[in-house]
């Protein structure tokens, strides 16, 4: 379904590609004729039934489709003992940098797979591919978040082995991805110290739904006016169960604790 206009065309829909793969070329002349519903003004037949209104009690969750496929993903991950992490943050908080550092440092200990989500480009997938880690890029087009069906299709393409870690890097966006369960084992929200200490209460849903909070770019602390304690207090106000790691992905500070958490959660996921 087209994320821009809902027209049912694949043209603006998500594309799922490995590095080096070429996207299918669609023509951009799609019309909306294929999906329209006819009005009945010109019908010649007579309706025999009376035109009283009938009320259908539906009571259906609007996100049900997403939740059903997320449950399917989760079952698959559990059966294969795959620790699947959904990495969420604003654009530029350092999701890819943390990922790169983690892959380089733990490559010999943990087999990783990566799903990259961005609106456009294979840039992130190419960065991961350069580290010889199996990676799939999902381009959401105009879409602002990953949904479980995209992950389902990407996972099928990755052929993930048992007892591994799957890193799903969501689209950089602190709002929309919070509503969409992908079937992940844990949700990891990343915030950089340059974003300001009150982001957790400005964008509470993301922090409310996460299990872990990585505070990145701590090497910049001497240059900016921010209190990590305040940031944590705000985050804990939203979600008292959050577990924190303070790191610098570029310098490597604090990464050891994050690695220990990964290893611990891998054993028994």
């Amino acid at each position, binding site marked *: *379904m087209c*994320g821009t*206009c*809902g*027209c049912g065309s694949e043209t603006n829909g998500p594309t799922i590609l490995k590095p080096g793969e070429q996207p299918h070329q669609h023509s951009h002349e799609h019309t*909306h004729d294929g*999906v*329209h*519903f006819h009005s*009945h003004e010109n019908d010649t037949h007579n*309706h025999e039934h009376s*035109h*009283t*209104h*009938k*009320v*259908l*009690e*539906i*009571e*259906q*969750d*609007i*996100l*049900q*489709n*997403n939740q059903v496929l997320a449950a399917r993903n989760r079952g698959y991950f559990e059966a294969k003992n795959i620790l699947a992490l959904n990495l969420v943050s604003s654009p530029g908080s350092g999701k890819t940098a943390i990922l790169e550092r983690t892959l380089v440092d733990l490559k010999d200990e943990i087999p990783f797979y990566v799903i990259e989500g961005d609106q456009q480009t294979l840039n992130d997938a190419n960065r991961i591919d350069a580290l010889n880690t199996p990676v799939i890029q999902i381009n959401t087009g105009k*879409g*602002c*978040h990953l*949904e479980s069906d995209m992950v389902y299709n990407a996972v099928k393409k990755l052929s993930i082995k048992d007892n591994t870690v799957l890193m799903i890097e969501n689209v950089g966006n602190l*709002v*929309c991805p*919070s*509503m*969409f369960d992908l079937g992940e084992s844990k949700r990891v929200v990343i915030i950089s110290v340059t974003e300001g200490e009150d982001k*957790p*209460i400005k964008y*509470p*849903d993301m922090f*409310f739904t996460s299990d872990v909070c990585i505070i990145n770019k701590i090497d910049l602390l001497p240059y900016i006016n921010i209190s990590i304690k305040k940031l944590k207090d705000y985050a*804990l*106000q*939203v979600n*008292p169960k959050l577990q924190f790691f303070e790191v610098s992905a570029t310098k490597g500070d604090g990464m050891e604790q994050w690695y220990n958490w990964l290893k611990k959660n891998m054993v028994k996921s």
Partner: protein
Amino acid sequence: MHELSIAMGIVKIAEDEKAKVKENTITKIELEIGELAGIEIDSLNFVWESAVKGTALENSKKEITIIPGKAICADCNTEFFLENIYDSCPKCNSNFKGIIQGKELRVKALEVI
């Protein structure tokens, strides 16, 4: 703008249901949206017209019931209404709570002829 995804999800549910009962027209759709569901009603209204264009909901009336957020404190068992997901217990100030109402995002009913 995940409201567009949500609106398209609503359209899909409505069209599936309409096909099931073989009725011609959906005259009204009733939605229930919780205050803590993460949906901006203004944004939903904004995208609604383009999302329903050419679908079974194009000429349907939309009725939204807002459900207030409610939680129960994990420390002192007080039930309280909350406007923000991070509101703490008014009695004991604890942040540990269970949301019991306000996360709804439902198509409640369709009116068809």
